[in-house]
């Protein structure tokens, strides 16, 4: 076994101190022969510092498509010739989606909008939607509405939104290759306001955007510095009509190495399987990731693409003897 795994065992598993950028890079460069030992170690770290529970979440798009930003991976940008059309979800359908999510045993329901940041109409829709969900469904509400002003952060807290997702998407040095209509620093400043408000910070990104292995390590270190409550890990699912529509998907072994490396960088975070796992890793990879550092899943469909049926993931969790985190444990 390579020296980095010995070091990680002593530092991360025993002391709960995450690997730094250089350590993460060594992990990402570790040979295929070490992969199963690496995943086993990441799993032990997750069990020791997070426990066996898995946090289950459903997500829904409140406002789809027509976004003015140019994130090169995104089918919802209005600047590309993507076939995704603009559409709003009405409040009764939003509540129904929350109910169906809760019925799977999920404790988290994240409302997402394809916007640079919310306008008055979206904030009003959020206010009505969150109130309607809270009146009808026993589930925690999270939101992802782009960049916020301080006033909007305060409004979301007042509505009862307990967690805010805002992904940095990729490392600081690669970000300008992926997005030109806003900066990494603007995203960081929203995250800082969210943190200061007392809402839980959810921040991750997408692997496979064309970043180098070094930049993947840089990204893990930058996320570790932010210390988010949750890190959703997506793998690029190349979307027709977007600038990254022809990129290859991440190799399964590289995806698993990245999962383990991010866990070793952030031993205590909720590391969530998000979009792209189906095409990158398939059914087998979903299992390997859950035994390699992942401790949260998005069940069912994503925002514009479809996922595995929720019961396939839930049956897998039962088989792996990983209990779904209960609502009482999250309050």
């Amino acid at each position, binding site marked *: 076994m390579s020296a980095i795994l010995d070091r990680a065992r002593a530092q991360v598993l025993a002391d709960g101190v995450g690997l730094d950028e250089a350590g993460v890079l060594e992990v990402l460069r570790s040979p295929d022969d070490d992969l199963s030992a690496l995943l086993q170690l990441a799993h032990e770290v997750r069990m020791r510092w997070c426990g066996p529970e898995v946090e289950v979440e*459903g*997500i*829904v*798009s409140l406002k*789809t498509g027509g976004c003015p930003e140019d994130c090169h991976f995104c089918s919802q940008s209005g600047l590309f010739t993507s*076939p*995704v*059309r*603009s*559409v709003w*979800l009405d409040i009764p*359908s939003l509540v*129904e*989606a929350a109910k*169906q*999510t809760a019925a*799977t045993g999920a404790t988290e329901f994240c409302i997402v909008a394809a916007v640079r940041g919310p306008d008055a109409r979206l904030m009003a829709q959020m206010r009505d939607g969150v109130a309607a969900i809270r009146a009808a469904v026993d589930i925690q509400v999270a939101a992802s509405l782009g960049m916020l002003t301080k006033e909007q952060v305060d409004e979301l807290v007042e509505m009862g939104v307990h967690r805010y997702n805002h992904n940095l998407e990729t490392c600081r040095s690669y970000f300008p290759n992926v997005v030109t209509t806003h900066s990494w620093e603007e995203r960081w400043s929203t995250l800082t306001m969210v943190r200061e408000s007392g809402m839980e910070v959810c921040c991750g990104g997408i692997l496979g955007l064309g970043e180098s292995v070094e930049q993947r390590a840089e990204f893990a270190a930058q996320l570790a510095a932010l210390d988010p409550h949750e890190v959703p890990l997506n793998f690029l*699912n190349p979307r*027709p009509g977007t600038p990254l529509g022809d990129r290859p998907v991440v190799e399964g072994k590289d995806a698993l190495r990245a999962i383990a490396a991010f866990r070793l960088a952030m031993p205590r975070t909720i590391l969530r399987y998000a979009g792209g796992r*189906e*095409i990158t890793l398939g059914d087998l990879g979903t299992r390997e990731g859950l035994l390699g550092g992942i401790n949260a899943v998005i*069940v*069912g*469909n*994503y*925002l*514009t*693409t*479809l*996922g595995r049926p*929720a019961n396939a993931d839930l049956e897998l969790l039962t088989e792996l003897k990983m209990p779904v985190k209960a609502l009482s444990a999250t309050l």
Partner: protein
Amino acid sequence: MTAPEGRTGTPTGPVPWCDRCGEAAAQGDHRTCAAARALEPPRFCPDCRRRMKVQVVPTGWTATCVEHGDRHG
């Protein structure tokens, strides 16, 4: 390519347009489209090629053509 929908929105009879890429169903190779549709809702109406309004929710999706109505999956 085939249509209109069964419960999953999978077309069941011949139709003119591919519901993923919007090109003529009888021309070109749409096997990649068909495979991708396992993890994507349709985007183009298979009857008229209009881009549909598609709402995905955790347990399903609805695709609406102004001319040909709703499809569900």
